[in-house]
């Protein structure tokens, strides 16, 4: 019934209680007939997320419409010991919403209400299924927007953004999802409903919203989210610079940042990804270029004007062969369209591809790109590069053809080598797509056993039974509930202790 392909780490396969007709009946009573899916053909729709190489069939899919319904479903899961997996729009690129075989998949796509908009305080409250872009669309007439803008923003959900701590092109200046979330209502794995954080900043107590964001659905389900919105800037300049090679583009980025300019966004695409974008959306990128740099500056008029002149000078000095300013909103949108369609566009130049998400210190850019090129040559595979250059977040696209014998395995191995290279340069295995199922096998490249055991104390605090999205993020679960050692009071002199060290 299920087939989970090519997991990079030993799967943790506890025996999962079956979804019996009695349980289905109970779910139907909670959610109504249209809130419960059991048909195999329909279940198949939910068997993978944006990472289609991993597939598994859930035991049942439920579509709650309120916090109470989520709570009731989770309580039932807790009572029966059945794992559950939250799902937003299913665009995740790390297999985060991949069902645990036989689980209850809780799809939040019917929780699509924007519950409150408070412009004077720059806050909105949304349900988790709300589409990222819809928040901006709702507040745009009043001159506001929601800053985190993943390229998938037309379809991905706020709940998914929360779970992945999603970024986007503009997070260099404006921060990631976590910097814009103040509070949330969550359903914990035991069915408890809790309010984390709130409306104001710096509230007393542990930063639980800060922990929940980025926890990839492993600590519970967010059902209401308090977001900050920001004022649209007075001026925006979007420009494109063409370079003969990514090295030169990378140099321009370093010079811009070293010059004290903080662009809203600064993106690089290499020759292959330019070709792909052109084939897909005809963004008008100079096809002969070895690299394209996309820069956006925003803020007050005089600052943007002066800094765009500075950026142009930096680009020209680094060897830009062309400098183009978007003169209209249409031109701006077109420049961005090429970049934002980069992943899908890879399909134009290759039947299959793997998207990676490694991060490096910005200064390691040329060295790492060269290393990636060499690795690609060694594996006999092409790698297209698109990246958030300002924060060193690379998206190497490993291109392969699954019809070639062993190509998928080679592509996966190459993608893994690339991640190791990123970590070796001082970076990370993931900047915004999350660890999920895909990269949990690489967590030990970044973290020691002690590190991961320590992280998972949080899981033990909030979900000791490991029911919430149990297979994701960490390769080996920490056992919870080791009873703390016996308290042994000892009347030692403080000074005496200090002498020992």
């Amino acid at each position: 019934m299920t087939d989970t392909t090519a997991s990079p780490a030993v799967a943790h396969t506890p025996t999962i209680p079956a979804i019996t007709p009695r349980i289905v009946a109970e779910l139907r009573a909670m959610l109504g007939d249209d809130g419960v899916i059991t048909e195999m053909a329909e279940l198949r729709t939910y068997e993978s997320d944006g990472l289609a190489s991993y597939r598994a069939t859930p035991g049942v899919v439920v579509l709650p419409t309120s916090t109470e319904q989520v709570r009731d479903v989770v309580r039932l899961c807790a009572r029966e010991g059945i794992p559950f997996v939250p799902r937003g729009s299913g665009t995740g690129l790390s297999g985060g919403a991949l069902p645990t075989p036989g689980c209850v998949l809780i799809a939040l796509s019917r929780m699509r209400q924007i519950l409150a908009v408070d412009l004077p305080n720059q806050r909105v409250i949304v349900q988790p299924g709300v589409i990222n872009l819809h928040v901006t669309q709702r507040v745009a007439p009043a001159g506001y927007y929601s800053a985190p803008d993943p390229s998938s923003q037309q379809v991905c959900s706020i709940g998914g953004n929360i779970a992945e701590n999603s970024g986007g092109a503009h997070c260099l200046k404006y921060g990631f999802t976590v910097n814009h979330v103040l509070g949330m209502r969550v359903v914990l794995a035991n069915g408890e409903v809790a309010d984390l954080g709130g409306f104001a900043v710096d509230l007393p107590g542990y930063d639980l919203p800060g922990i929940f964001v980025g926890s990839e659905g492993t600590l519970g389900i967010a059902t209401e989210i308090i977001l900050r919105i920001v004022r649209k800037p007075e001026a925006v300049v979007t420009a494109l610079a063409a370079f003969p090679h990514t090295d030169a583009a990378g140099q321009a980025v370093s010079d811009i940042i070293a010059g004290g300019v903080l662009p809203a966004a600064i993106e690089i695409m290499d020759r292959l990804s330019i070709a792909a974008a052109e084939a897909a959306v005809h963004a008008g990128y100079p096809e002969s270029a070895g690299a394209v740099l996309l820069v956006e500056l925003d803020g007050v008029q005089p600052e943007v004007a002066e800094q765009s002149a500075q950026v142009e000078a930096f680009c020209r000095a680094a060897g830009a062969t062309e400098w183009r300013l978007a003169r209209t909103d249409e031109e701006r949108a077109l420049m961005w369209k090429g970049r934002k369609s980069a992943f899908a566009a890879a399909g134009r130049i290759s039947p299959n591809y793997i998207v990676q998400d490694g991060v490096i210190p910005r200064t390691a850019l040329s060295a790492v790109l060269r290393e990636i090129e060499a690795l690609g040559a060694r594996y006999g595979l092409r790698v297209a590069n698109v990246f958030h250059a300002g924060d060193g977040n690379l998206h190497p696209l490993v291109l392969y053809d699954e019809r070639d014998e062993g190509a998928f395995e080679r592509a996966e191995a190459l993608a893994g080598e690339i991640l190791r290279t990123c970590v070796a340069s001082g970076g990370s295995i993931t900047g915004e797509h999350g660890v999920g199922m895909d990269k949990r096998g690489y967590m030990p490249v970044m973290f020691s056993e002690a590190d991961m055991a320590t992280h998972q104390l949080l899981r033990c605090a909030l979900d000791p039974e490991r029911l919430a999205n149990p297979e994701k993020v960490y390769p080996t679960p920490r056992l919870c509930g080791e009873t703390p050692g016996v308290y042994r009071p000892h009347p030692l002199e403080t000074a005496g202790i200090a002498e020992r060290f």
Partner: protein
Amino acid sequence: MADPSSGETLAALLAFADGEGLKVLPRGGGTHQGMGFPPAGGDIALSLAALNTIIEHAPHDQTVTVQSGLPIADLQAHLAQTGQWLALDPPLRPGATVGGLIATAVAGPRRLRYGGVRDQILGVQVALADGTIARGGGKVVKNVAGYDLPKLFTGALGTLGVVLSASFRLYPLPADSRTLVCDAMAPEPLCEAVQTISASTLTPTAIDILGPVDSGQSCRLAVRFQSRVERSVTEQTATLRTLLGALANDAHELHGPEEPDFWHDLDTQEATGMSDEDDWLDLRATLLPGELAGWLAALQTVVAAHALALKWRAHAGHGTVRARLAGKAESLLAAVGALRQAAEDARGALVIEDYAPALAGKLDPWGTPAALDLMRRVKAQFDPRTTLNPGRYVGGI
């Protein structure tokens, strides 16, 4: 008092204390030891003073990794040599360390533009009570691998473990600064002005309201513009004058050396307080920006009703008010109750950051967060024998 010179020694000391049931009070510069409840026990004062090196400063990556006992002032002086800074400006207390800043997460005026500690910390290395040394996060500006340990330890007041070192992102120092200052007879018109500024496209780095600035109720609005582009600063100041209308008639502009001095004085005055007779306390209310005027009105009323002395400073753009209240102990306690209620009714919170020793044990510095029970569960996992800073934190954690 223990003063370990390496993370390993410190961790071994913790493991020993934890095994023996000894209570450990970690300290950085000792500038915030008054924060929270008085500790419920303390066998070892653990100084981080010897862990004070800059491990790595990568100017071109705009990141830094430091040991937590490093004084903030030393770090900033080092970073300034390359035209950078850690964009956090807590009230200045001599000797305050990076570790103390992480543990208390106190924020200053420019949180408006740069965010707080939680928004700038990239990674931590911590020692848990049982001696485990663990890392979370990393040293690059973008990273979502694993649970966000750096945020968990930010503002945790050393109750989950001892931060040994931390990485932060950095910003270029602004080249130009200008501050527009204007006064009003009461806070309301200034709070209204702040709402107008927030709804505009201006990008101030700080918006403060200070009160009282004379023997009456007069307050002062100070709006700071900073940029690497001079015209940005001058033009924004001019636009602000227009926005403020009549309020700006008597406004004056600060630039040149007097400008940073103005802010520096505010940051230090705040820390040194104002009264040596009477009891006193320092509170911090965090509010929705739009609720500021209402809460400040409650502050005036409550202070008058209880015959207390008052000095306050609001980082109005992000809804944070710091106030020192002085007077009789029982009046202070009553005032805190009323003001906390007012803050919570407005969907905010109120914390006592410091208080006269005579008030110890008589007040709850924290209030009760909605998720207190979850916080207890987190504490129980990280420090099951309550070895670290016992009793000081929310709910007596």
